[in-house]
């Protein structure tokens, strides 16, 4: 069932790429339309899964990825509508399509174990997914910032110069996305810690609950991630690390997020393999 949103994301990517390369206005409108359709279908899919299992499907890694893709699509659409800027789509859509391929090809079993029946768990997962979506947006904006920066610096005004918004706008958007992401990351981690502490009380025998410590790769890498973004925010405000350095940091931060989100969740963690 996740294959239909995947197909639509791929179609939207093609339209965004066409729009970006040829600067074709109808292609841009078509791209947005297809992406809106993809988000709607995806909403429907997630809604159906919710009805089926009785809660929002975020407990298994696979369904969490699907929800993340959905959130990222909505976040991107929000940015596109508020800034009236379609150039970023060509960078976001490959990420959406690639990640959506996982639930489309390997539909995971959404089976919520007893440990997870706590409202804190819902807050934990949804705020982290939202943080990750913001970081993805920041990363993409950062990449486009660097591309444009290099063109202007090298005095080779060409492809990106003609297509991207100004450096100032990109920098401001990047900062905003990082701030939002950082806030949700912080909330998500605190709530997770509180919930893990409580779980020690009511499910002490569960090996996953026992593994919830800083030695667990998933938790450790999440902290690294928090450190990177905290530093970026501090550096941008205190030591003038705006612009290109901030852009590189947001790319680094999101690389860590992806690492934590996909390979570590599937293969390494002992605490988060639900």
């Amino acid at each position, binding site marked *: 069932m996740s294959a239909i949103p995947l197909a639509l994301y791929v179609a939207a990517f093609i339209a965004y790429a066409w729009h970006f390369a040829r*600067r074709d*206005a109808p292609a841009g409108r078509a791209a947005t339309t297809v992406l809106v359709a993809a988000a709607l279908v995806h909403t429907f899919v997630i809604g159906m899964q919710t009805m089926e299992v009785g809660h929002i499907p975020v407990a298994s890694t696979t369904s969490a990825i699907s929800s993340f893709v959905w959130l990222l699509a909505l976040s991107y659409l929000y940015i596109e509508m508020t800034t009236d800027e379609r150039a970023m789509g060509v960078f976001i859509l490959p990420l959406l399509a690639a990640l959506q391929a996982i639930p489309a090809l390997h539909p995971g079993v959404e089976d919520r174990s007893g440990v997870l029946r706590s409202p804190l768990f819902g807050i934990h997962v949804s705020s982290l997914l939202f943080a990750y979506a913001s970081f993805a947006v920041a990363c993409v904006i950062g990449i486009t910032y660097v591309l*444009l920066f290099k063109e*202007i*610096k090298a*005095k080779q*005004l060409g492809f990106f*110069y*003609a297509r991207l*918004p*100004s*450096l*100032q*706008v990109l920098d401001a958007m990047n900062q905003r996305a990082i701030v939002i992401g950082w806030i949700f990351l912080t909330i998500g981690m605190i709530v997770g810690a509180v919930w893990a502490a409580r779980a020690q009380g009511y499910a002490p025998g569960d090996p996953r609950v026992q593994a919830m410590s800083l030695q667990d790769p998933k938790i450790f890498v999440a902290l690294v991630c928090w450190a990177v973004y905290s530093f970026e925010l501090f550096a941008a405000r205190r*030591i*003038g*690390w*705006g*612009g*290109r*350095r901030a852009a590189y940091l947001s790319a680094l931060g999101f690389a860590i997020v992806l690492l934590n989100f996909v390979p570590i969740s599937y293969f390494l963690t002992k605490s988060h393999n639900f």
Partner: protein
Amino acid sequence: MHLLLVGISHKTAPVELRERLDFHARGLGESVRQLTGRGSAREAVIVSTCNRAELYVACDEIDATRDDLTRFLSEFHALPASRVTPHVYGQPDLDAARHLFRVAAGLDSLVMGEPQILGQVKQAHTAAADAHTAGPILNRLFHSSFAVGKRVRTETGLGSGAVSVSYAAVSLARKIFGDLSGRNVVVIGAGEMGKLTARHMKSQGVRYITIVSRTMANAARTAEAIGGARATPWEDLDGALGASDIVITATGAASPILTRAHVDRVMRPRRNRPLFIIDIAMPRDVEPAAGEIEQVFLYNIDDLQATVRENLARRASEVTRAEGIVGQEVEKFGTWLRAREAVPTVVALREHFETIRRAELERLDFKLSALPPEARARVDEITHLIVEKLLLTPTEQLKVLSDGETITAYSEALSRLFGLTDAASQESPGTDSSRRVTPFNRSKSGPSR
């Protein structure tokens, strides 16, 4: 009916003559009214810019009208014909349409693809429409030209990229800072170049301009000349640079006034806010190495000229696509124009049938007079419907014909078969009986060159 263009442009006439042939001084509306008052043209629009003066008319006789329009150009501006005539070009029919479409697209401009011309063409048409000198043909022609201009701008890169150094600088500044209105611009040097650039920045919406010069009096004078700018003494240069976003250097100094170390020092308290330095001085005012500093964007006059050259080259590479659009639109317009040639025949045919119908009704009046009024009305209605039905197919067939020769052949056949000789008239503003022409002898009247 023919389309005709007579005019001069930067390609055929020197600027001294173009200045003399400007129509704006006496008003486009008044000029175009005088033009149609001469009687040689049925419809007229005058396109007048600093690079061209062109008369677009719809007329019956190409050669005579061409001569009359040439005379109009010199007489209206009180110039001897010998001064004007050698520079005048004329284009008949679809060549005139193609010319206008190329003009509207910016293909005929001095600076390829410049956008102002489309507005000027629109203005020309509005003036003529207000003066009631633009009729169905020129209305259609000009609306098509607006469509061409719009298509070329959105579908090709003909108008993209700055093509003057000052616009290149402004467009770079916009790409770095976005909106410029809240940005601080510092101009170093109070000479003519500095003043010009500061004026340009101001016209682009920059509100905060500071002039720094070695002589405070010069700075103050320049600041006053620009209006709304501040002057700062040379000793406060670092302070001004620290608060600036865009720095324009235009001094006559023999050696660089901003070294890399100097810029580095200025950048630190700015916390790496981007700084865009435009060095338009010759010899250069800023050490090139300053451009290596993170968040410093340094462009000198050569760099700006290089981007202008690139933009011009890119525009040139779009010409083929733009010409393709012009070609398509000329084709469309031609189809419409040829279909219009059938209009007089259609009108004549309808008038002929209507005349017969009325004559017959009159002839039978004595028989119909016995009928009650409602029944007579029915008879009138029925006969009218019969005529309409009979003419429906021939009318439609005539209107879809697109090639001129076929239309002429059909028209001639119809006029012979039905004896349509003098009933046809062509609608146009101010049609009067002396201007009535039969559409069927057009092969004699207007050989297109």
